[in-house]
């Protein structure tokens, strides 16, 4: 027998499993389970976008694209970034089309990090930053954002964690799971610290089109002096409901993008071409789809935030993404107990906050990427569950 553990990279063995699997195993076995646990749009990719993908297949366009992605797509992305966020990138040297935002994040870590370099990662946040940092030889250093700051990152919190080897700051906003956004003033304060301590920034803006309340998203590289320090990651999954197409991109200084392209070329070759054809259509003619989906999400958001607050689970008002992050401490239960009992008693699945970092304890992540009908029924069951707890 081979002892495979001896044969593997110790770094991969050290990556802990996320530990929320059991909830989904339970949920999958139940028949009438109502899930508010899924982190992707419930909308189908707009039909005109799907049609372009289909047409490319009908036309037999099934070959590789250039490593960086089709030039037409890169040009459209740059136009789109300029139109939406007033940032200018050169399509030939400062942009790379990747397999989802995830590959872009991975490429960024692997390109920037030397062994022992420290990466500042605000939490609660999406689960991939720590493990990918570790696999790239870096050291993840977590920053706990706080409910009283509406889960925004403050310059003081960054400075507390600075060390001689700190190289990179991850900015995961709009945030999964809290729904927090950073407004211009918040970003400017962070930019000061970044400049002062000569840091680079990985700004994961995959939810950039899903912000509410009329104040549009601000791209971090638009902040004065940040263009040269920022790698912007974005993609099509959330803005255009294109998760399964696996298409994202990275925009940043050409010296960095050139190296990331090298890695992408050897590791991936090129992003899926069908998806690239569809994405061109999305960028050219998809702005109305975004507005429509955002309007729908916004109404659901209001409904669900109101629902939780009525039940007495305080819910800071999320201004981005499609999650709410209610505090469940008033129930006296831990996040995990809350989720486990909720699924057994009421057949409603939500995700315990600590899945997104230890500081998520006392919270649960609830997705509102579901129909109004579905959300209304889930809220009714959660209310029933809370009434049961009080008895």
């Amino acid at each position: 027998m081979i002892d495979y553990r001896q044969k593997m990279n110790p770094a991969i063995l050290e990556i802990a499993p996320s530990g929320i699997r059991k909830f989904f195993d339970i949920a999958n076995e139940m028949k009438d389970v109502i899930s508010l646990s899924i982190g992707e749009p419930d909308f189908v990719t707009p039909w005109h976008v799907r049609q372009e993908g289909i047409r490319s297949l009908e036309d037999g366009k099934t070959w590789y694209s250039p490593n960086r992605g089709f030039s037409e797509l890169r040009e459209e992305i740059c136009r789109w970034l300029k139109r939406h966020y007033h940032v200018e990138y050169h399509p030939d040297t400062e942009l790379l089309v990747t397999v989802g935002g995830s590959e872009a994040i991975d490429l960024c870590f692997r390109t920037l990090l030397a062994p022992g370099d420290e990466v500042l990662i605000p939490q609660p946040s999406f689960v991939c930053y720590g493990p990918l940092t570790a696999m790239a030889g870096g050291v993840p250093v977590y920053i706990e954002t706080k409910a009283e700051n509406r889960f925004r990152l403050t310059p003081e919190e960054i400075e507390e964690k600075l060390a001689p080897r700190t190289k990179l700051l991850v900015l995961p906003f709009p945030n999964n799971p809290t729904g927090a956004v950073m407004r211009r003033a918040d970003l400017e304060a962070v930019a000061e610290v970044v400049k002062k301590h000569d840091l680079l920034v990985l700004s994961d803006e995959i939810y950039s089109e899903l912000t509410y309340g009329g104040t549009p998203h601000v791209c971090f590289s638009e902040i004065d002096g940040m263009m040269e320090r920022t790698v912007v990651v974005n993609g099509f999954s959330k803005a255009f409901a294109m998760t399964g197409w696996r298409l994202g991109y990275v925009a940043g200084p050409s010296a960095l993008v050139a190296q990331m392209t090298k890695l992408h070329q050897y590791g991936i070759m090129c992003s899926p071409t069908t998806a690239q054809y569809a994405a061109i259509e999305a960028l050219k003619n998809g702005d109305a789809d975004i507005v429509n989906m955002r309007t729908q999400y916004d109404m659901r958001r209001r409904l669900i935030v109101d629902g939780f607050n009525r039940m007495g689970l305080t819910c800071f008002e999320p201004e981005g993404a499609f999650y709410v992050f209610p505090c469940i401490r008033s129930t006296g239960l831990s996040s995990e107990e809350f989720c486990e009992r909720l699924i057994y008693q009421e057949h409603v699945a939500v995700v315990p906050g600590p899945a997104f970092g230890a500081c998520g304890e006392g919270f649960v992540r609830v997705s509102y990427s579901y129909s109004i009908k579905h959300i209304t029924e889930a809220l009714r069951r959660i209310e029933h569950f809370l009434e049961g707890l009080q008895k």
Partner: protein
Amino acid sequence: MDKLLELLQENARMSCEQLAVMLGRTPEEVAAQIDEYEKSGVIRGYHALINWEKADANHASALIELRVTPKRDKGFDEIADKIMQFEEVESVYLMSGGFDLAVRVNAATMQDIALFVAKRLAPLDSVLSTATHFILTRYKDGGVVLNPEDERDERRTVLCD
């Protein structure tokens, strides 16, 4: 406040409280607005969208194209007014193109519809000709797919290992 109309069009059974939350208004404001819409005739009614094929009831419907002679001064209004009095008639539209009026008719059986056309519609004074198209299957009606193949949520949870 067009959003309110859109929401009601999708689901007229939501409460004023729910609508108010979703629209960022007070329930009183929403109630008043609905009242206003009802009074001014913007909202003309609320009804269930029924998939009759599933309701196990006899139900046939047809689209009937009518060519008619317009009347001096009254144009098509007079004949339209006569046609819509029949309770079998669900909708009457004045059309551009190759015919004048499109009439949707519901009845228990196709035979009933055929008789209705022959005995009631065709003999009307200004009707020049009729063409009856029976509806065989309703795939989508009122913006709703009537027999979705599979309503399961196919999304799955990623990153849960």
